[in-house]
């Protein structure tokens, strides 16, 4: 009982310390605020968007930014600001769902690989090597083409290609943790392998998982934008930032703003995830801190 309390204290103070370190890191906090702001925008989209993002109005064809339309209108007279606001929903969904799938697969395969060793380990390591050997974007494109272009298939494609990095990371962590005394103790007490992995080992890998998932979300959002730009992701009329630029590029010469704002939205979002990911790495892994 006593020991358990001690343990808890140590673990909460680790997270407390980490949070303190994170809060001191100004850039990381900027990243956090960008992501929180984006979430608020995505959730409140129907209330804060000035127009219906799907509403076609040919009288307002390709208007430059003005008081009525702060970021201008597209070739269907739709309000670009409203479409960008609703586009935040698409991007965040991709970040959370696709990266969630990738992280889950990565943690599962990485744990199995590191804990059991033997032929399973060989097989999984070889599989990660194969995935790393593919040029990433082309591989995702090939999968999306096989499954058919749609947002759901982007989730799947990013999920089944994105796990390799997490798996490699977790495998390394587990290889070192499984020899530790507390795991040996759990084993001596007769804990099952599943229990040891998910109750004792994985919780000690939470920090690297959080870091790689945060950076991975930015990556997933970028991948979706790229696929949608090529016409392989979100299908019209869904307001995805990537596909907005795909349509906008035909009007680049005269209407820069149409391409500019959706791209700016992508950059700010991915920037936010990268800032937070970098900051988390410094905060959660004090050994790396210079």
């Amino acid at each position, binding site marked *: 009982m006593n020991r358990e309390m001690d343990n808890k204290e140590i673990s909460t103070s680790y997270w407390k310390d980490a949070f303190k370190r994170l809060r001191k890191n100004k850039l990381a906090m900027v990243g956090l605020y960008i992501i929180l702001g984006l979430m608020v925008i995505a959730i409140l989209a129907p209330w804060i968007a000035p127009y219906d993002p799907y509403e076609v109005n040919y009288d307002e064809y390709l208007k430059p930014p003005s008081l009525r339309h702060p970021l201008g209108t597209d070739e269907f007279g739709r309000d670009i600001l409203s479409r960008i606001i609703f586009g935040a929903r698409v991007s965040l969904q991709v970040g959370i769902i696709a990266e969630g799938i990738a992280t889950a697969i990565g943690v599962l395969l990485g744990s199995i690989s590191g804990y059991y060793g033997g032929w399973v380990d060989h097989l999984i390591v070889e599989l990660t090597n194969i995935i790393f050997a593919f040029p990433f974007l*082309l591989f995702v494109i090939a999968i999306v083409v096989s499954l*058919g272009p749609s947002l759901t298939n982007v989730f799947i494609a990013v999920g089944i290609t994105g796990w390799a990095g997490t798996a490699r990371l977790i495998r390394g962590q587990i290889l070192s943790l499984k020899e530790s005394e507390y795991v040996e103790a759990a084993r001596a007490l007769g804990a099952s392998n599943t229990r040891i992995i998910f109750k004792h080992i994985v919780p000690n890998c939470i920090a690297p998982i959080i870091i790689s998932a945060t950076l991975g979300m930015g990556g997933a959002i970028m991948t979706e934008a790229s696929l949608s730009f090529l016409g392989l992701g979100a299908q019209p009329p869904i307001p995805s930032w*990537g596909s907005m630029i795909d349509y906008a590029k035909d009007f680049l010469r005269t209407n*820069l703003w149409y391409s500019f704002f959706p*791209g700016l939205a*992508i950059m700010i979002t991915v920037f936010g995830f*990268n800032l937070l990911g970098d900051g988390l790495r410094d905060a959660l892994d004090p050994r790396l801190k210079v």
Partner: protein
Amino acid sequence: MINYIIRRLLLTIPTIIGIITITFLLMYVVPGDPVRILMGQRGDPETIAMIRKQMGLDDPLPVQYFRFLGNILRGDFGRSYATNRPVLPEILSRFPATLKLALASMLVASIIGLTAGIVSATKQYSFFDYSSMVVALMGVSAPVFWVGLLLMWIFGYTLGWLPISGYGGVSYLILPAIALGVRPAAYIARMTRSSFLEVLRQDYIRTARAKGLPERRVIYVHAMRNTLITVITVLGMELASLLSGAVLTETIFAWPGIGRLSVDAIIKRDHPMVQGTVLFTAIIFIFANLIVDISYAFLDPRIRYE
């Protein structure tokens, strides 16, 4: 050293077979009958059945797989549905354009990345350090197709200094090379900075300073050598990924490389060409990385004995 190279070469074999297998399966599950795509609206059912038989599409999966594997190993990547010409020569004819763009953007990236990285590290926590690392992170976060479009608008449409897109002399190369170089430049800057900082904390640097060497000599001779090992690896890895085709950059700048070829093939549903480009670029990527690893072992003797 020879043993190390041979071992590394042997290790690529299962990876390459795995890549061939995945590429095969991907195209096998693609919806739509390839013969229909090939014939368009023209084919009557009998002709289609005949062609299916000729192409071996009715054979069981394992038979088709081993035939595919055998063909690939003989260098036969199949024929394009669009042109009915062999796929591999077409890919090889596009490779020089991809190579040119990759080398040019690598040049841009190394000049910017190395300079920014070294200056940041030697002036750690300065304004320059802070701002260049923020800019580097923004460079990593900006979508390459968007950077490309902005460059086009500024230097092509507005200033009129450079051609918007297409393939020709050096002037056509500049914009795509910059657009494609932004991400690796940012990455190289970050890696150079962190490895430089790590080297600067080593004992031998303290020794060099303690014996009274001028700071410039300590940084540009003593520290630089060990930083370069890391930096060269990063350069090599970035080059490897650039060589495997810049799908997005080549698409927006109408650059006739492998990336553009693969996107065109995807749009035309030319499955053998898609398969061929994916396979080809993956193999290029593996060998480029292999060369990086070997040269790394060559530069840093500690690696060889692991």
